[in-house]
């Protein structure tokens, strides 16, 4: 196995814990793993290296046929969620391997990826942090975007001008979160700070790409 560690998880919610010296640490509780290696991507066959892992066992009839057949061929059970993680090589990995939270230790740095909460079609205040107009003194300009261009010159609205848009519900990664606790019994991972997405949202947790352990 290589030195990169990864897992799939569900976000459970946030709370706080006390360190021994009384410092309060805000943490997100993740229900992580157990995951099973369901397949490998090799340079010879696929042109790149990756390990595919499955999370949340599913009955075979709930899994689409391509995935179901692939699982049967690999000799692994069917899963509701499959995700690939890029690795440097696939040496040491083989289908059927179990991955649990035990691979992580308090103090590890991880990157957590997920789909952020969707805000629907959001105005400029929520989407871009614009200011707000006066609510009183007869002002009707409360949440309007304000001016979006000049006059005869340039005679158009510049490309990229910030306007109301569909906001959220995109893939986001929070980097370098500290693992504050691991509970192998319940399969829980406590990471410092917030992570993208709603409660029960699917997350990918992996060893931090850039962070240096303090």
């Amino acid at each position, binding site marked *: 196995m290589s030195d990169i560690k990864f897992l799939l998880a569900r976000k*459970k*919610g*946030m*709370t*706080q*814990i*006390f360190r*021994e*010296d*009384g410092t*309060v640490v805000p943490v997100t*509780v993740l*229900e992580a793993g157990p995951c099973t290696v369901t397949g490998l991507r090799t340079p010879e066959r696929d042109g790149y290296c990756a390990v595919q892992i499955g999370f949340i066992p599913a009955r075979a009839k709930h899994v689409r046929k391509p995935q179901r057949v692939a699982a049967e061929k690999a000799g692994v059970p069917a899963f509701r969620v499959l995700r690939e993680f890029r690795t440097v090589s696939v040496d040491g990995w083989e289908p059927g391997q179990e991955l649990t939270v035990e691979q992580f230790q308090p103090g590890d740095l991880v990157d957590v990826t997920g789909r952020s909460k969707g805000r629907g079609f959001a105005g400029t205040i929520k989407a871009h942090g614009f200011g707000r107009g006066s609510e009183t003194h007869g002002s009707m300009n409360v949440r309007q975007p304000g001016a979006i261009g000049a006059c005869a010159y340039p005679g158009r609205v510049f490309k990229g001008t910030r306007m109301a848009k569909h906001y959220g519900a995109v893939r986001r990664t929070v980097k370098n979160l500290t693992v504050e606790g691991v*509970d192998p019994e*319940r399969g*829980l991972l*406590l990471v410092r700070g917030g992570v993208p997405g709603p409660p029960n949202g699917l997350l990918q947790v992996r060893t931090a790409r850039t962070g240096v352990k303090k």
Partner: protein
Amino acid sequence: MDIIREVEKQHMKADPPAFKVGDFVRVEYLIREGKNERVQPFIGQVIRFGGSGVRKTFTVRRIVQNEGVERTFPLHSPRVVNVTVQRGPNRKPRRARLYFLRGRTGKSAYL
């Protein structure tokens, strides 16, 4: 949600000190002085509880040099070493948060 509760339970005190709103308590709080740690007592009347789970807090009010002082402590913090009830309220408080004591002194602040 239940998982959160269970995680919180692990970081809560097994038997947190028992006291109620209105009690006059002595809070022993660890403070750091340079490299040493020592216990600093704070004595006063509990005027409210806030939060729930590990985040539960309580506020103690006392009069120092004719000035009202309130401090809020996290109940489950390891820095809150001990809380002892010195005496209960004179009368049972009829509300959960004794904010009405703030404007009062002397006999009218009696409870």
